[in-house]
């Protein structure tokens, strides 16, 4: 037998064993005990309010089929119609339509009962009309994305001339500051990813999903970094390429930020406060500084066109995120996005670290570098309080 056939053998044998187990039915599990009855609980994914109507999106997270039997609003049985099937296979979804004169701003609860009588309820803190896809909303979300993403990053980049005049030790401190604030962003995104992952219905809720997102973006960024480095003479990542990489890493993060803002607005969970927008702006201006530092490090001339590109790469995704946030009905995708943001940020930290180790006076252990790194984290924390 050749080596290829040997390689397939375990797979074939596994198939045989699995087949035997499946055909034996419950014979084996009966030796141990009986399986507990299924939970029969549906998952209410999304509740939308339209004039005179409530739309409830439900998913079956269980192993077995579930049937939507009864629907309540505020503990009252209501007539309903369905987009899709009443009988849901595993991870299948349907939308329930209920004609209902809901009261604007009042708390409301919806309940969906499966045929085995198990009721899943969801409390909504305040019923507000879910904005549809309108030109006005599109413009508004776009402007918010611009304001919290592109504008502060662009303003931060204006520190470039001053940074260029700073001496080498200060510059290495600012590079370390970039690494510090990216670390902060990475950790925040990671925590967000884990938090959202924990809220997923159980069969989807493996923490491995977060790792998958992190690894996916980390490795993509690594690939991108080496591709950019190939253009350089030294084969090591140059300052210009590093600045671009930092901008991309921050951009992925800002996409997640825009997404969170867009989703929250769409579901009326976030008050569109001036304070909040201002908070995000102050928070994100430090990101511009983070891109400016490696750009200044290179010493060469950086044109206005290139600066605009960097601002757009880092801040523009906030606009995209804000647009998509209102339409994103999948918590699963949100987890992957935030995990990807974490992976991208952390990869850029590694790149910046390498760069600093190579270029900074005294390397990574210099007091300027250590201080800068800490200052980056502290700056993000303090400005983050404003957006909290």
């Amino acid at each position, binding site marked *: 037998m050749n080596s290829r056939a040997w390689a397939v053998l375990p797979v074939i044998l596994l198939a045989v064993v699995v087949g035997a187990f499946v055909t034996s039915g419950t014979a084996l599990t009966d030796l141990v005990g009986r399986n507990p009855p299924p939970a029969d609980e549906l998952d209410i994914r999304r509740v939308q309010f339209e004039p005179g109507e409530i739309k409830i999106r439900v998913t079956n997270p269980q192993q077995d089929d579930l049937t939507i*039997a009864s629907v309540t609003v505020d503990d009252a049985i209501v*007539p309903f*119609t369905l*987009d*899709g099937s009443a009988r849901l296979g595993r991870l299948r*979804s349907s939308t329930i339509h209920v004609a209902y004169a809901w009261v604007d701003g009042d708390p409301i609860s919806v309940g969906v009962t499966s045929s085995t*009588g198990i*009721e899943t309820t969801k409390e909504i803190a305040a019923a507000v009309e879910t904005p*549809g896809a309108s030109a006005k909303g599109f413009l508004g979300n776009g402007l918010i994305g611009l304001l919290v993403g592109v504008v502060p990053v662009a303003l931060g980049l204006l520190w470039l001339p001053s940074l260029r005049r700073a001496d080498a030790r200060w510059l290495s401190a600012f590079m370390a500051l970039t690494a510090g604030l990216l670390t902060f962003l990475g950790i925040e995104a990671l925590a967000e990813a884990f938090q959202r992952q924990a809220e997923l219905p159980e069969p989807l809720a493996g923490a491995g999903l977060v790792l998958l997102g992190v690894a996916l973006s980390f490795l993509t960024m690594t690939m991108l970094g080496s591709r950019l480095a190939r253009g350089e003479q030294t084969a090591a990542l140059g300052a210009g390429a590093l600045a671009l990489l930092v901008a991309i890493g921050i951009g992925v993060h800002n996409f997640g930020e825009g997404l969170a803002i867009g989703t929250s607005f769409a579901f009326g969970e976030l008050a569109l406060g001036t304070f909040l927008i201002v908070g995000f702006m102050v928070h994100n201006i430090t990101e511009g500084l983070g891109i400016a530092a490696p750009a200044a490090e290179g010493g060469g001339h950086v044109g206005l066109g290139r600066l605009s590109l960097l601002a757009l790469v880092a801040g523009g995704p906030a606009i995209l995120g804000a647009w998509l946030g209102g339409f994103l009905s999948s918590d699963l995708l949100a987890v992957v996005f935030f995990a990807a943001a974490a992976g991208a940020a952390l990869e850029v930290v590694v790149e910046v670290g390498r760069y600093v180790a190579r270029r900074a006076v005294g390397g990574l252990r210099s007091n300027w570098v250590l201080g800068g790194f800490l200052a980056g984290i502290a700056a993000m924390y303090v400005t983050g309080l404003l957006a909290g």
Partner: protein
Amino acid sequence: MPKSRLSRRKLLAGAAPLVAAPTLAKLGLDGNAEAAEHDHAHAGHAAMVGEGAPAVGGPNDLDALLYPPPQARRAGGVVDYELVAHDHDLEIAPGVFFPAWTYNGTAPGPVIRATEGDRLRVRLVNAGTHPHTIQFHGIHPADMDGVFEIVGPGEDITYEFPARPAGFHVYHCHATPLKKHIHKGLYGAFIIDPPSPRKPAQELVMVMNGYDTDGDGENNFYTVNGRTFYYARYPIRVRRSQTVRIYLANLTEFDLVNSFHLHGDFFRYYPTGSTEAFEYTDTVMLCQGQRGIIEIDFANTGRFMFHAHQSEFTELGWMGFFEVVE
């Protein structure tokens, strides 16, 4: 299907490839192309009548529980009943199944009727999986009380005692845990007629109950005679020219009280129906085990609602209509 929804779907589907791999997108953004019917019933619950009311089954399914056996012509005989307790899944609301314990396959169980002075002989056969009993309300010897003589699965017992006092009573299982055995559906109506018959009337039995389908100690559904909105789906037809007599009992578990409220008219309410005393009202409140006799002389024809005057119970199934004809 409205056009706007289609365009919304297209938008979602268009956005999906932008944001992630299509396989991931499928989990959350699937547009459900196989859309089903989409006519909105413009209905608050006031419109929950006839076809608009979500009730299980056909128009005569609950007749055996609603219409009691006729009054016996004369007293002093032996009245035999056989009740078989067994586990049985009941469809209590459309598509909602409750794993009930029943007497003779329904919850509430069959209506038992005798005349004061009759010798009542009720044989209980336990074909279920848990020990059960029957505890009759009324006056009887201590060993016929259904508390100490536990009937195990596969066993049987015959309760035998003179039926008294005249009035409207209830019976229910008294095995422990009591709450579980009652809530699961082991209860029913027990009528003892006075020796001189009550004046002729259109007689109805209504046993108020609730079902906790998810085991959290709170009822998810409320009914009379076992099915939500059943008499909204199939209004009870009565004649204006003749008294309507309702034997009303409350066997709702978990909640402190239940109630009966009639729209558009008043009635005489005889608590327990064992004396001549009555209250003239349109709303009565009963705790678990309380029961009484209602007599309505409808002043008008037309459709009149009746329901629990706990709005929550009303909207969770305990609501119906009388269709009063001349």
